[in-house]
């Protein structure tokens, strides 16, 4: 153990060593974050502009909204926040552990490797290389690179922990440990895929299972990439900046462990009212509600640390950013549980409210915390003072107004459209049968949102300038400290002491009782389990009080001195929720042949079309999930069923409806309608903001790859026969020619082997067993029975019925319109 008094530098004891921190890596990550922050937000602004003015898609594949949106999300999450997180972790970890990072080489590999991954993403996403899973769109070689670089980071971090000169781990380090471990688990499981070619793969999971794995990942990417590392950063930089003690250690303990344990379970709140089994949906909702307090624990520890120093907050821009960032965190983590309530989700899901919620976190929490940290770090990293405090103040106000405009416009847009989409006339029919009508109603909000984004980006650019000017006014300096070497002897506590710790056994018992309660089929059993849980809780409380009174050292103190034990326990806490939800759902796979016997796999052409649907990112605006809600079934058709998706690798349920749901689109419109709609959406759906996909008509399908695609699907368990594989090329061509022949009868010339042909074939197949026929029907005249002088010899149009003309021809309605 180390003595608490710092040794004066001029009187080095034999145990004192001088440590120079590696701040070069910190500077690199910081400026990479600023650079990619600008890029990511610029792309976001373009996307926002495209939603308000479709012309901003410029008819270019690489700039089309659906390809740009994954670029925006990936850039902001992994490039902007990722680099910011690494800067904060490298800076604070070295100082909290009183040692330089273990390996400069690994730090360097980590930095350059991560930037290479970002560049690979920035190139591959606009080119359309996408797995079609949100926030995990990067294709498999990049996924492998991410895993490798993450391991490099982990080795470097844990190695640094091993050679630390501070025995106990501060709460910031706990959060970093949780981040590193959990992101690795999430990324690897969700990226499991079967490669088809060097830049194309199919998710190993399908349908409901893929959806559950994806949102277990997606939700926890928010938790463990955007939240826990930033909480760690808050715990270091906020008290540093304000110079006051962190409010409460015990609050840190309680909210850390409850947060990492509960967060994992909440993923299914993204799938409420879908085909996911109801028990899993309920778990997602309930754990989200229970997550409210643990999340607010972090906010409270931040805000209460500022207590008594609000005068400093008024004067110091760094503190303004932190105070507002933590407040937005509190707001977003209150809104999250609210949106997870089933009945709220019924209205808000698929609408812009969710987009607003995500940006409350990204702009408010991540963006403002990043800015606060950068303003604090840059002068220290360059041995100077901030170039312009008033510019930083201006940044704060512009950013805050930008966020408010963004959030308010999305609340209004989301709630308004949600209500319009479900509104019924007194006779029970839809009040707004045309989807476009609801989109046009919220267009002013889309414009306002773009303005909010523009303001936020403007503030960010101001910061970039300010930081560069600050850096130029000083020169790079590395932190130096004289630290006491940690005694080589391991602490007296052994691994056995950790394992026999009472909190472990109470946790194990609690989880066991929880599972027993959850699975109890009889009320008596469930009530007994509640009683058992109450006894466990009360027992734990009484025993810990007794120990405390007796002055015994806490078990948590013990674990906080042993990084390995801490990491293993965190992993177990995190795995509990994942195993409990994923395992039963994945084991159900055995039952799939029964439930899915009637489901027919896609034809070769439809599968090709599906890949184009994924490549173009159609899921960014269209869902494929009709929920059991009158508003949904009235508009789109029959409720979606789990077994309809068993061959969908990956699932394409989507998470946002900027356009209508497509699950029952198959057969609803003629091929010509689809052709016209893809080439010029506004020709058949006036007012639509969908980009034109005219370019698909001139893109040639890789027809030769069809058999290999079927073979890959066969490996994943889709029941294609070998004959299907052998004849894939012929059936592909035959089906395409039926489609193009149909178009030709209406004067449209389309080559059979275009991307457009394939995607129309796929759309015509959605939600039903048969799509475009595989062989052309014989000409109608051939079947007509010898026409006896029929009673209706080509009767002229005689709309004798008065009501007739009132009905517009149904298929000409805008997308998702009356039909």
């Amino acid at each position, binding site marked *: 153990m180390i003595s608490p008094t710092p040794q004066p530098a001029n009187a080095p004891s034999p145990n004192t060593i001088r440590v120079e921190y590696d701040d070069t890596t910190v500077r690199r990550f910081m400026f990479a974050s600023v650079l990619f922050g600008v890029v990511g937000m610029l792309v976001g602004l373009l996307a926002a502009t495209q939603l308000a003015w479709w012309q901003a898609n410029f008819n270019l594949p690489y700039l089309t909204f659906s390809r740009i949106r994954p670029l925006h999300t990936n850039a902001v999450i992994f490039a902007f926040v990722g680099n910011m997180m690494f800067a904060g972790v490298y800076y604070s970890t070295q100082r909290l552990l009183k040692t330089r990072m273990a390996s400069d080489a690994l730090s360097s590999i980590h930095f350059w490797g991560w930037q290479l991954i970002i560049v690979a993403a920035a190139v591959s996403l606009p080119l359309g290389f996408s797995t079609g899973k949100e926030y995990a769109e990067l294709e498999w070689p990049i996924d492998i690179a991410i895993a490798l670089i993450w391991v490099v980071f982990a080795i470097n971090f844990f190695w640094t922990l091993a050679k630390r000169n501070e025995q106990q781990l501060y709460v910031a380090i706990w959060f970093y440990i949780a981040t590193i471990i959990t992101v690795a688990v999430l990324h690897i499981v969700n990226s499991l895929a079967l490669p088809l070619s060097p830049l194309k793969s199919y998710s190993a999971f399908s349908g409901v299972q893929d959806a559950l794995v994806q949102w277990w990942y997606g939700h926890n990417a928010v938790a463990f990439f955007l939240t826990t590392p930033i909480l760690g950063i808050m715990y270091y930089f906020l008290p540093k900046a304000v110079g006051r003690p962190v409010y409460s250690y015990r609050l840190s303990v309680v909210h850390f462990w409850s947060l990492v344990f509960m967060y994992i379970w909440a993923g299914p709140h993204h799938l409420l009212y879908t085909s996911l089994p109801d028990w899993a949906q309920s778990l997602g909702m309930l754990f989200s509600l229970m997550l409210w307090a*643990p999340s607010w*624990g972090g906010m409270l520890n931040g805000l209460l640390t500022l207590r008594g120093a609000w005068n400093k907050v008024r004067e110091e821009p760094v503190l303004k950013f932190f105070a507002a960032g933590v407040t937005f965190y509190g707001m977003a983590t209150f809104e999250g549980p609210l949106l997870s309530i089933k009945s709220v989700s019924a209205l808000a899901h698929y609408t812009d409210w969710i987009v607003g919620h995500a940006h409350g976190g990204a702009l408010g929490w991540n963006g403002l915390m990043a800015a606060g940290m950068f303003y604090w770090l840059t002068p220290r990293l360059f041995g100077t003072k901030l170039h312009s405090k008033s510019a930083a103040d201006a940044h704060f106000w512009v950013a805050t107004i930008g966020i408010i405009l963004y959030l308010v416009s999305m609340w209004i847009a989301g709630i308004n459209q949600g209500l319009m989409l479900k509104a019924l006339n007194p*006779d029970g029919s*839809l009040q707004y049968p045309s989807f476009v009508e609801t989109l046009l109603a919220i267009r002013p909000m889309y414009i306002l949102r773009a303005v909010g984004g523009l303001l936020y980006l403007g503030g960010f650019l101001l910061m970039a300038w300010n930081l560069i000017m600050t850096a130029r006014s000083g020169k790079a300096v590395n932190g130096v400290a004289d630290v006491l070497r940690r005694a080589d002897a391991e602490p007296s506590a052994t691994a056995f002491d950790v394992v026999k710790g009472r909190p472990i056994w109470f946790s194990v018992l609690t989880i066991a009782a929880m599972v027993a309660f959850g699975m109890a089929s009889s009320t008596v059993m469930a009530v007994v389990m509640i009683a058992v849980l109450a006894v466990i809780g009360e027992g734990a409380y009484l025993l810990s009080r007794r120990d405390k009174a007796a002055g015994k050292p806490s078990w948590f103190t013990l674990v906080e001195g042993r990084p390995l034990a801490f990491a293993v326990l965190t992993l177990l806490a995190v795995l509990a929720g994942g195993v409990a939800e994923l395992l039963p759902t994945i084991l159900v796979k055995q039952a799939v042949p029964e439930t899915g016997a009637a489901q027919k796999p896609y034809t070769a052409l439809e599968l090709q079309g599906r890949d184009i649907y994924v490549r173009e990112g159609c899921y960014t605006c269209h869902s494929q999930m009709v929920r059991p809600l009158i508003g949904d079934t009235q508009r789109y058709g029959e409720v979606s069923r789990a077994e309809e998706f068993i061959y969908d690798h990956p699932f394409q349920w989507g998470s946002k409806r900027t356009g209508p749901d497509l699950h029952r689109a198959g057969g609803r419109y*003629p091929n010509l309608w689809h052709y016209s709609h893809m080439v010029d959406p506004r020709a058949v759906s006036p007012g639509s903001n969908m980009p034109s996909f005219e370019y698909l008509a001139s893109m040639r399908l890789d027809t030769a790859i069809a058999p290999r695609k079927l073979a890959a699907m066969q490996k994943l368990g889709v029941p294609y026969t070998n004959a299907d594989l052998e004849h894939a090329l012929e059936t592909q061509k035959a089906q395409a020619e039926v489609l193009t022949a149909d178009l030709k009868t209406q004067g449209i010339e389309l080559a059979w082997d275009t991307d457009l042909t394939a995607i129309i074939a796929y759309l015509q197949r959605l939600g039903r067993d048969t799509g475009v026929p595989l062989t052309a029907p014989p000409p109608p005249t051939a*079947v007509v029975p010898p026409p006896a002088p029929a009673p209706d010899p080509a*009767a002229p149009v005689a709309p004798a*019925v008065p009501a007739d*003309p009132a009905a517009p021809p*149904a298929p000409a309605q805008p997308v998702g319109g009356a039909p």
Partner: protein
Amino acid sequence: MKSDRPGVLHVFDDIEEADNHLPLWWLATLFGAIVFSAGYWLMFHTMHQAKSPMEEYREEAEAHRAQLKQSGPSSDGVLLALSKDPQVLSEGEKVFKTSCVACHGQNGEGVVGPNLTDRFWIHGGGPLAVHASISHGYPDKGMAAWGPVLGQEKVTNVSAWVLAQRNKNLPGKAPQGTEEP
């Protein structure tokens, strides 16, 4: 590391850590949410005392169907809504298979009467137009008025089914009437 200062538990890199009590209202939200969750699970998944979203939907759908039928074919929207309702469609199909197949074929592909699965309509293919054709008929052209025979409900059901067959383009009788896109 441990700190000697009063009220400060640890110090890490000059960051002091206090150990204040957990705010009571915060504890209340934590335990409140846990108790609520246990109760919710008990009600919905153990005792099944509350309806699942699917059960709730089925009831609402039933009521909604009744509402649509009661208001009669007052608008295209009502008929289109019914044409997406599997239960209405199966009832409609039964009516079609007993009363209509003779002239329009097993699946509406047309025999003596016109093909109902193409894009061509003699008396209009809009929902209300189809309903009116079935209900009032065109006796001079061989189409009976089925309203008095079948009753409103069955006419509505079969209209919904016919609407769902539009543009299936089954091979059958050659197109008649005008094309509706």
